[in-house]
Every structure is written in structure tokens, then in C-alpha cells.
């Protein structure tokens, strides 16, 4: 009976039902949308995180050069200690390599169960004399016995006797035996399994479940002038690689310019081909470390300038740094194994010293990325299992670099931070939903009071009314939550795309759906129920009396003042504890973003208390006018407006709170997005060095000089600046020490204007002065503070700089340290020293710029596109130029939390916020209509023209709209500032706070538009009210 009544009530009052449900729909929709957004985004985080990885896993072979030596250990007799208590330990050292092993040292230590018998040791059948104890545990740290050289193909027997308890079983573990040599200083245990050849290792690993590909890669550094063709050598160091065609096919950064990767033929880098004037079919000669030479026919020419898998550093000190070598040659893996490695072995054994840069031999592994879970944490567990399986293949002969698991572990941590962040960004939406529902509920309750009174007169008890309220609330919130659920999912699909949502696991989607719909149902339902219950508990006449003077609970409790004080105190504490500082995250550095998520409470506190305080101030301002009673009324419109807002300001105040909260959220999100985009763009521009970076490709037809910068000054480009730069391209030597370093040589005059150089980058605090110093005195150099500390060098000191390191032109010159810098734009791998390009050219005249930086005439994306178009149509059309922009740098930064689709989330939040703003205005205006319809029809009956009543409604709605938007913009600006401060670790550079005009105009414009439209509709409804009925009612 009651349920039927409630259902009819809802169906027959569609406007009232809908206006209440819209708040629920939007609120639940927003909360669902945020959670679904997080699901969809998390689903793509695995793909995003692993996308930039050049190699998923690397099995690095630790087999030493000249290491084809084995040590076999056995007991004679085997089994157990004989009855006489003596067991012979028989060792055998075999050298199966082509070269001798020098200074072979044997170490053998019996365990607790056995004891060395003095004088029992023999080497090569000869007794070892001169030792009172175990000669194989002799020396500091029990280093063992040096048995001298073991020649190629030789076998050396070593024996000694141990004593033990008769009958005790003998195992290998009872004696710890190993050997080392001059060529292999790391001890190699006895009885180690034979080394699996690299090609077999790759084949075995490729069979491991979850491994897509496994291919061998060998690489080694050859010296300068080791590659030539027709008597024309390349200048500078040469790098030699060994891999096959399949490896090249799978790595898209290995770009064959001509020819192919053929068996028994070589591929050379485009730069080497150019230097040697060699082409396909020509023969090139490679001088190997042992001074032997091999001739190979060129089968292809490749652009390797972006081949990260080949040139990523394998050294622990600068792991993954891109150390590019212009002169490279690729030979088949069989050639590397059969010819290059023996040459290194010979070199290592004949020169009598350890090779400084031994060849690197590895199996590069690509996992089945498509099978990885969309969640980075789960995916990390998957790759961890794959890594364990890969390590189990031919164990102990190498070690595994598990790049993908490291990356995914960081991404998983990022994902956790992202979820916390996004939930916080979604929380205001949820709060707004509950508030909007409560606001709608208040209005609805006012409208239903008369109906409730009638029902009471007809015998309905309070219990009946509460039962009906429960049913009505449940029906509306359940329906609204379901619709909101669909809306949220739809919006998430629109913003993220269906692929992302389909990638998300069903379990996470279901969990989000359940959480948000139940949460939304409870939050909005509770808000509706409480307002309705308060209405039932209040006497009608009491309510009428209170209507004009009602002061909200929050104001009476002073919640705004308390909240503001708490926000200020929280801010001061956070500043004192440096809580706003965090650490930027990077997969490359294996570090997740360190956000102080707890601080996100502050912007939310500023938001709520700011809006309440604004409402208090506006309410106080309106009531402060204290209209005096007078019988002389001037303009009815002005008088009615003035008296209405002056004597019942909290009706306006309530509307202001709602509108200001919504506008504040929209403004805050706009400010945050704008600041975020601007900061990321600045970060990207800083990393690029300017708006555009032009790098002459390896196959460029012309040789670009520093003076050619003007070539790149095309339409939309204001200027270009040449830069010489390289990783470890110089050696800096101070009076105390020296170190390889990254030197940048720039044109100080143009670099200062083209690159975003900042005063703060220099210790002197004056970037321009620093550039002038370099320009005016080419014998000066600027050094990074970090390098200066290492070198123990100071401004004014002389620095010896080995320029063009490792090339035929390397030369040492003295420079005076003119100053220090922290960091410089354009060198994401870091610059340790900076000098003028003239100063560099004075010593190395043949060196050409490595790249040019170019600035656009307009900072926006359109200006960048125009400049790119003109460059592509101009210089890049005529020659092979690699062009990077700040946009491409930004797009490539996909590996950390900073790359998350915050813009998408903000778009989602803003869309709902603007929708809620319109609904809030509508609720306010229609609420006025419901609450004051008797007033309006009375005025009509008194002869007030309908258009005057319309203006009166519009004036009050406008007051709410203007007050709400002004307060909202101010509060939103402050809230946005807090958001940017809390999310500071997302940025490399300190982000500048930016409040875009559009971000203010949009919500304000929408609120005003909503006010106009809703007022127009509302005033039409006033005309349709039945005065005869309303005026006789009581």
C-alpha cells in the first residue's frame, strides 16, 4: 500500500523525482567514472611502463677471457674415508683453449670433517715443498698455491691427502676447491658444469615459458683506427657487434639504410661507411686487439644512432646511459665467437695484463608482453617467475639483468600512488554528489511538507511517513545509482577509449562498480533521508517561522572557521616538515614517485572551508544591509529583491555554498591541469634543450658546421644554436684527480636565447653573465658543482681537458674554471662541463656540432607545428635530419606517474562538475519556485506583472550565481595552488602555478548560462501556477 503510494508519487511528479535523481546520477556517475578511469588507466600501465624498454632481460655471460680452463675434483678412492682414515684429493686442471693460462692459483680447503696431511701435496707428480701446512690454503686470506702457467691443451694433476674418520661418506662439499688466474681473477669453483655456448644458451632460454625471443648479442670496443676500407680508416674508436638477422629484425631502432644482414657478411654504420667511402660489396678490414686483422665483405649499411639496445651502457656506474659510437661494425655471431673472441683471448694472455674493456656477451630476452597482466604489480610477479626460469637455465655461468621486472616494480608503486591520487581527485566529486543530493532533498522536503501534513490529518503516523521516506529514498537512489553507474562507465570509455577499458580486469571493474554504486547509494541516500526526516520531524508552522531566519548548522558551529584554522595549521606544519617536497619518479632510476598523499587532505579542507567561509561572508554582507521597515516602497522589484536577500540571506548563502563548491572544483582542476601541462611542457622543453632539436642523421649528405645554424631558421623558427656534446667525450683533470666527463660546447650568444637557461642553473645566479664570460674568453670552462666537488676544483683553477677523447684528434688543453652550474637544458644525460664552441674548435677544428637547438616564435603547439612543417619542407626535405620536439619528448615520457592521463581524469571531473553546477542552479531556482510559489501568485493577484516576477527570480538566482562563482573562483584558485604544491614531485622543474582564463570563464559562463535558462523555464512555470488554488490553501 505504502510502496504503491510512493511509486505513484514518484511517477506522477516526474520533474520533482528527476531533479532529485539528477544529483544522485551525476554524483554516482562521477565517482564510478573516476574508479573506472583508474581501472582503465591501470590496465594500460604495464604496456606504458614496458614500452620504452630496449631489452626486457639480459643474460650476461661471466665467462672470463681465456677462460677455457676447468678444474676437476674427485676423491681417491671415491665413496667414503677408507679404513686407514686417509683419503686422497685428486685435482686436475685442464686448459682446452688456444692460449696459455698464466699464474694459475689453486685453492683447496678441507672442511671440518677432514684435515690436511702435511707434506702430502703434489703438483704435476712433484711434491710441493717449503710449506709446513696446506700449501693450497697458503697466504693472506688463504689465497692458495700459484702453480704457474698451464699451457694450451695441457693438463696438470694436483693431489694431496686428508685425514678423516673411517667410513665417513665423502662429498664434494667437504672440500672447497677453486682456481683463478691472471686472466681470470675471480675464483672458479671445481667441478663447475661446462659452459654452455652462447647460441645454445639463447636456444635453451627461448624455450622457457613466457619468453618470446632470446637472441645472442656480443659487443666489444675496438681501439681507434681499427676499421678501414681500401686504406681509408675511420677516425676514432670502433665498436664491433655480433648478432644475426633475426635480432636486427626484432629491434626497430636498428635501421638498415641499404643492403641486409647477411650470413658471412658485415653491416657497418652509416657514419663509418661515409668515413671509409665504403659501400655494399666492399671489403672492410678490422684490426683486432691481438693485432690480427680480418676482412669482411659489407652486406649492409645501417643507421644505428637510435639503437638503444646496442649502445645502452652495461657498466654499473652509468647503466643504460646511451653511449653512442659513430663507427660500428656488425658481424655474424659465429664470426664474433670464432674469430673476435679468440683474438681477445690471445690479447689478454699475450699482453700480460687484463683487458680494460673485455667483450660483453649476452642473451637478450624479450618476454611475451601480450601475456602480461594489465596490472603492473601482477605483471612484475609474472616476469619475476619468467626470470627465475631463465636463471635456472645453465645456472652459475652468468647473471641476469631483469630490466622488465625492475620497471614493473616501479610502475606498480607508481600505480599505487596513482590510485591514491585519483581517488583523492574523485573524492570531491563524491562529496559534491552527497551535497547535491542533500540540497535537492532539502528542496524536495520543503515541497512535500504540505503533502505530509495532509497525510497526517488523514491518519498517517510519523512511522508511516518515515517508512514512505525510506521507500522513496531507496527507489530514487537505487535508480540514480544504476543510471550513474552506466554513465560513469560510458564517460570512462569516451575519455580512455574502449581498448583501455577492455584491458581492465573484470574483477577490478566489478569491484569499482560495487564500491562506487554502493558508496554512492549510501552517501546520497543518507543525505536524502536525513533531510527528509528532518522535514517530517518539524512542525509546518515552525518551519514557516524559521524559513526567513534559518541559520545553517555549519555556521552556528563555526565549522568554516575551525576548518580554515585547521588548514592553516596543517599547511604550516607541512611547510616546517618539508612535507611538500618529494622525489620525482623514474623507471630508469628504479624509483617510484614519492608523493605525500596525506597532504591531499589540505586542498580538500581549503575547498570545503573556503566555500563555507565565502557563504558566511556573503550572507553577512547581505544581512548587513539591515533593511529598515518603511511603508514607502519604491520600485516593487528593487524593494522585493532588497528585502528578500537582506532578510533571508541564508537562502542565498546555501545556494552560494553549493555553486561555489562546484565552481571551485572546476576552477581548481583547470588550474591544476594548466599548471601540470605547462610544467610538463617546460620539463620537456628543458630536456629537449629548446622547442626543437635537429640532429644531422648518420646518412646526412652534408657536413653541418656551427655556422650553419641559420639553415634551420625557417618559418616559425626564431633561431638555432649549435651544440657539441657527448657522453664521456672528455677527461677532466684537476690538480687532484681526473675523471671522464660529458662536455657540452655551445655558442654562448645563441644558446642563452634559444635554450631555456635560467639564472638558478648557475652558482653565480646570473646565466647571461656566465654566457658572456664563455663568449668573451674561449679559454674558460664552466663545471658542474657535482664534478667540481669530485675534482676538488674551484673557480679560477686551471682544468686540463682531454678533448675529443678516444679519437685520432684527442688533445689536452688547459681551461680556466670560470664558474659552476647545477644543470643545463638540453642534456638529459647530464653535462659535467660547458665551454664555448669557439674554445672547443680552437683545439679540435674538425669537430662538427652534434645537434642544433631551435626555438619557435610562438610558445603554443600551433607555433611548434608550423615550425616543424617549415623544417620538414625545408632543410629536412633536402637531407637526413632527425628532428625532436618538446612534444615528442613529452610523448616519450611514458614510463612514470607523470605520464598518467591526468588530463583525462580532470576532463572527467570537470565535465561532471559543470553538469552539477547547472543542476545546482536548477535546484536552487526550482527550489525557490517550490518554496515561494504562494508569494509569487500573491504578487500576481496583487497586480504585479509576470515579467517583474521573472526578474525577481532572475535577480535572486543571479545573486547566487555571481556570489557562488566569485567565491568559487577564489576558493578554486587557492585549492589548485595546494594541489600543485602537493603534487610537486610529479615534475622535474618546480612547477609555476597557472590559472588559465579559460578555466575560469568556462565554469562561470556555464553557471550564468544555466541561470538564464533555468530562470526562463522557472518563470514560465510561475505563469502556469493556479492562483485560485494556491491562494485559498493553508
Amino acid at each position, binding site marked *: 500500500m505504502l510502496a504503491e503510494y510512493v511509486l505513484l508519487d514518484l511517477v506522477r511528479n516526474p520533474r520533482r523525482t528527476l531533479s532529485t535523481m539528477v544529483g544522485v546520477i551525476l554524483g554516482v556517475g562521477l565517482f564510478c567514472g573516476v574508479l573506472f578511469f583508474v581501472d582503465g588507466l591501470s590496465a594500460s600501465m604495464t604496456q606504458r611502463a614496458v614500452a620504452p624498454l630496449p631489452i626486457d632481460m639480459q643474460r650476461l655471460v661471466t665467462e672470463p677471457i681465456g677462460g677455457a680452463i676447468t678444474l676437476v675434483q674427485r676423491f681417491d678412492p671415491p665413496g667414503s674415508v677408507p679404513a686407514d682414515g686417509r683419503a686422497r684429493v685428486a685435482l686436475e686442471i685442464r686448459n682446452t683453449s688456444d692460449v696459455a693460462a698464466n699464474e694459475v692459483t689453486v685453492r683447496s680447503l678441507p672442511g671440518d670433517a677432514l684435515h690436511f696431511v702435511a707434506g702430502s701435496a703434489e703438483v704435476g707428480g712433484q711434491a710441493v715443498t717449503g710449506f709446513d701446512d696446506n700449501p693450497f690454503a697458503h697466504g693472506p686470506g688463504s689465497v692458495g698455491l700459484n702453480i704457474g702457467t698451464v699451457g694450451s691443451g695441457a693438463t696438470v694433476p694436483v693431489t694431496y691427502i686428508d685425514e678423516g674418520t673411517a667410513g665417513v661418506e665423502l662429498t664434494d662439499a667437504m672440500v672447497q676447491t677453486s682456481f683463478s688466474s691472471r686472466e681470470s681473477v675471480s675464483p672458479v669453483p671445481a667441478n663447475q658444469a661446462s659452459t654452455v655456448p652462447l647460441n645454445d644458451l639463447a636456444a635453451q632460454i627461448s624455450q622457457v615459458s613466457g619468453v618470446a625471443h632470446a637472441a645472442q648479442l656480443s659487443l666489444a670496443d675496438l681501439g681507434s683506427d681499427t676499421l678501414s676500407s681500401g686504406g681509408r680508416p675511420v677516425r676514432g674508436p670502433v665498436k664491433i657487434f655480433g648478432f644475426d638477422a633475426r635480432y636486427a629484425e626484432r629491434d626497430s631502432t636498428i635501421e638498415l639504410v641499404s643492403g641486409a644482414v647477411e650470413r658471412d657478411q658485415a653491416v657497418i654504420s652509416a657514419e663509418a661507411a661515409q668515413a671509409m667511402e665504403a659501400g655494399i660489396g666492399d671489403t672492410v678490414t678490422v684490426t683486432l686487439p691481438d693485432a690480427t686483422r680480418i676482412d669482411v665483405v659489407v652486406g649492409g649499411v645501417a643507421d644505428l644512432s637510435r639503437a638503444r639496445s646496442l649502445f645502452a651502457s652495461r657498466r654499473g656506474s652509468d647503466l643504460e646511459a646511451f653511449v653512442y659510437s659513430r663507427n660500428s661494425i656488425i658481424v655474424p655471431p659465429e664470426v664474433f665467437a670464432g674469430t673476435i673472441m679468440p683474438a681477445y683471448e690471445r690479447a689478454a694472455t699475450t699482453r700480460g695484463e687484463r683487458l680494460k674493456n673485455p667483450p660483453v656477451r649476452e642473451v637478450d630476452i624479450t618476454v611475451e608482453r601480450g601475456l602480461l597482466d594489465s596490472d603492473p604489480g601482477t605483471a612484475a610477479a609474472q616476469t619475476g617467475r619468467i626470470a627465475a626460469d631463465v636463471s635456472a637455465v645453465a645456472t652459475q655461468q652468468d647473471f641476469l639483468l631483469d630490466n622488465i621486472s625492475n620497471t614493473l616494480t616501479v610502475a606498480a608503486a607508481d600505480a599505487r600512488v596513482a590510485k591514491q591520487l585519483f581517488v583523492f581527485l574523485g573524492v570531491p566529486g563524491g562529496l559534491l554528489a552527497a551535497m547535491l543530493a542533500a540540497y535537492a532533498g532539502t528542496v524536495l522536503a520543503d515541497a512535500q511538507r504540505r503533502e505530509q501534513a495532509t497525510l497526517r490529518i488523514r491518519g498517517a503516523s510519523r512511522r508511516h511517513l518515515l517508512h514512505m521516506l525510506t521507500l522513496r529514498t531507496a527507489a530514487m537512489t537505487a535508480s540514480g545509482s544504476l543510471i550513474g553507474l552506466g554513465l560513469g562507465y560510458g564517460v570512462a570509455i569516451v575519455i580512455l577509449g574502449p581498448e583501455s577499458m577492455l584491458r581492465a580486469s573484470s574483477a577490478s571493474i566489478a569491484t569499482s562498480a560495487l564500491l562506487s554504486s554502493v558508496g554512492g547509494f549510501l552517501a546520497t541516500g543518507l543525505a536524502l533521508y536525513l533531510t527528509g526526516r528532518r522535514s517530517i520531524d518539524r512542525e509546518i508552522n515552525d518551519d514557516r517561522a524559521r524559513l526567513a531566519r534559518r541559520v545553517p548548522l555549519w555556521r552556528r558551529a563555526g565549522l568554516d572557521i575551525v576548518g580554515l584554522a585547521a588548514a592553516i595549521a596543517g599547511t604550516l606544519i607541512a611547510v616546517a616538515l618539508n612535507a611538500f617536497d618529494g622525489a620525482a619518479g623514474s623507471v630508469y632510476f628504479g624509483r617510484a614517485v614519492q608523493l605525500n598523499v596525506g597532504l591531499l587532505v589540505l586542498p580538500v579542507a581549503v575547498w570545503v572551508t573556503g566555500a563555507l567561509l565565502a557563504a558566511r561572508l556573503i550572507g553577512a554582507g547581505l544581512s548587513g544591509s539591515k533593511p529598515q521597515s518603511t511603508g514607502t516602497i519604491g520600485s516593487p522589484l528593487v524593494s522585493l529583491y532588497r*528585502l528578500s536577500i537582506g532578510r533571508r540571506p541564508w537562502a542565498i548563502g546555501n545556494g552560494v555554498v553549493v555553486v561555489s563548491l562546484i565552481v571551485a572544483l572546476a576552477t581548481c582542476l583547470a588550474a591544476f591541469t594548466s599548471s601540470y601541462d605547462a610544467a610538463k611542457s617546460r620539463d620537456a622543453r628543458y630536456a629537449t634543450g629548446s622547442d626543437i632539436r635537429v640532429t644531422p642523421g648518420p646518412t646526412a649528405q652534408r657536413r653541418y658546421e656551427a655556422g650553419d645554424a641559420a639553415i634551420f631558421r625557417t618559418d616559425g623558427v626564431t633561431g638555432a644554436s649549435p651544440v657539441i656534446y657527448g657522453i664521456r667525450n672528455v677527461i677532466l683533470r684537476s690538480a687532484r684527480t681526473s675523471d671522464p666527463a660529458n662536455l657540452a660546447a655551445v655558442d654562448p650568444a645563441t644558446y642563452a636565447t634559444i635554450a631555456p637557461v635560467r639564472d638558478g642553473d648557475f652558482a653565480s645566479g646570473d646565466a647571461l653573465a656566465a654566457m658572456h664570460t664563455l663568449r668573451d674568453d674561449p679559454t674558460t670552462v664552466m663545471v658542474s658543482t657535482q664534478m667540481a666537488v669530485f675534482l676538488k676544483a674551484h673557480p679560477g683553477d686551471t682544468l686540463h681537458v682531454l678533448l675529443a677523447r678516444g679519437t685520432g684528434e684527442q688533445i689536452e688543453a688547459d681551461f680556466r674554471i670560470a664558474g659552476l652550474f647545477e644543470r643545463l637544458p638540453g642534456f638529459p644525460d647530464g653535462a659535467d662541463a660547458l665551454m664555448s664552441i669557439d674554445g672547443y674548435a680552437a683545439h679540435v677544428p674538425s669537430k662538427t656540432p652534434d645537434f642544433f637547438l631551435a626555438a619557435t616564435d610562438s610558445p603554443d603547439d600551433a607555433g611548434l607545428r608550423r615550425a616543424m612543417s617549415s623544417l620538414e619542407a625545408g632543410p629536412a626535405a633536402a637531407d637526413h635530419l632527425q628532428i625532436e620536439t618538446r612534444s615528442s619528448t613529452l610523448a616519450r615520457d611514458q614510463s612514470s606517474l607523470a605520464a598518467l592521463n591526468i588530463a583525462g581524469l580532470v576532463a572527467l571531473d570537470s565535465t561532471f562538475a559543470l553538469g552539477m553546477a547547472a543542476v545546482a542552479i536548477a535546484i536552487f531556482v526550482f527550489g525557490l519556485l517550490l518554496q515561494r510559489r504562494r508569494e509569487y501568485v500573491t504578487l500576481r493577484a496583487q497586480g504585479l506583472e509576470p515579467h517583474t516576477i521573472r526578474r525577481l527570480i532572475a535577480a535572486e538566482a543571479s545573486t547566487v550565481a555571481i556570489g557562488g562563482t566569485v567565491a568559487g573562483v577564489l576558493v578554486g584558485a587557492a585549492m589548485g595552488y595546494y594541489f600543485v604544491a602537493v603534487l610537486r614531485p610529479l615534475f622535474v622543474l618546480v612547477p609555476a602555478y597557472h590559472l588559465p582564463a579559460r578555466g575560469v570563464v568556462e565554469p562561470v559562463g556555464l553557471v550564468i548560462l544555466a541561470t538564464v535558462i533555468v530562470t526562463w523555464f522557472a518563470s514560465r512555470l510561475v505563469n502556469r501556477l493556479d492562483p*485560485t488554488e494556491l491562494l485559498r490553501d493553508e
Partner: protein
Amino acid sequence: MSGAAIVVRDLVVDYAGVGGTVRALHCPALSVKRGESLAVTGPSGCGKSTLLGLLAGLAVPTQGTVMVDDETISALSDRDRVRFRRRALGMVYQSDNLLPHLTVEENVGLQLAICLGARIAHPDGLRPDPAALLHRLGLAELAGRLPDELSGGQRQRVAVARAVIHRPAVILADEPTGALDANNAQVVIDLLSDVQREIGATLVMVTHDPHLASQLDRIFELAKPVAATEDAGAR
């Protein structure tokens, strides 16, 4: 200017109900002279309030004509009916319908402002004085109070003041004492009658109370409409 302030002919009001057309009012003829006071009585649902709404121009009949103060208001446009109300009508309801955020004098003054805003001046050329009227009605002490601070009887007296401040030609009262006790009811009726006589207005008052009806010049018994149902009265 004719002798009749109100002339009604063949007045019918129908509306669409759930079961078909419902007749809310049928008034074949009614004429009220200027300065006359008329009590409209009749059973519930006979259309008394509907008739008053038609006389006030707040609704239009389905058929028939309504002429008030020489204006055929049933034929007027919405805008002209508003002007007509401002010029010629004063209304008192069972509920006082005072604006809750306006004081007593402001409620009264607003009515005057609405009329003066339309440049409607009293025939004697003098601007009516709300303070004087409130004094005349014994409300001077309450001038600065909000309606919520008054008793029911006081509020209804203020409603009377508001209805007559602009000296209308016709005063329409819809059970103005329905929510009052007998004493207050008599006070209000006396007040209304006095003022009506004082300004020479025509008074039409709907009432169920035979005693009050008997105090007016004439009683008009409105019959239940032929085609009407009980629903009409409940409308």
C-alpha cells in the same frame, strides 16, 4: 459608468477530469450594484472560489461573460487583466498570504507601490497613506513587525489593509474569517464592511457562515453545477 459593479452571464467553468469533463461552476446570472456588499454561499464544490477567481481575472471561464467595473474581463488579455486587478481589485483570502519577509507596513506599502508604479492615482488625487490606514485599522503599533510576529487575527487585519490601501472599486474576499475564531472573525468583518463603505467599494465575500453572510447587503446562493460531480468540489 453603469450602476452595476459586477455583471455575470451564463458563466460556465469546465475542466478535464480523469473520467471526463467536470463542471466546476455554472452561474447563469449575477449582478452586484456599486457599493453593495454580497455574500456568496452554497454547498461545497459549487464553485464559490472559482467564481471569485473569475471575478478577479485570475482565471478565464469556459463560456459566459464577466464584467467588473465596466470591464469585460473575460475578454481581456493576460496583461490587461493584470492592469485591471491593480486598478480595480482588492483581495482578501482565508490565508493572509502576506509576504513573510516584509513587515506589516511594507506588505501594505507594496500593494500601493504596485499600483503607483502603474501610475494609478486615486480619483481625489491624493496618495493613500499606509501609515494612516494602519492607524485607522488599529495596526499602527504593528507596522514594523514581520507577519510571523503577529497573531492570526492581526495578520488578517493587515491583509484587509493591503486589500484596500489603493481604494479598489471591488473587494473580493474568499472566506476571510475561515481561519479565525468568532471574535476575530467579527472584528475582521466589521473592519472590512467599514472600509468598504468608507471607500465606496463593492464587496463580494464567499462564506459558509450564515451569520456573517447575514451582515452583508445581500446573499447569493450558488447552486451546485448540474454536470458537476463531487470531484469538482474537491478540485
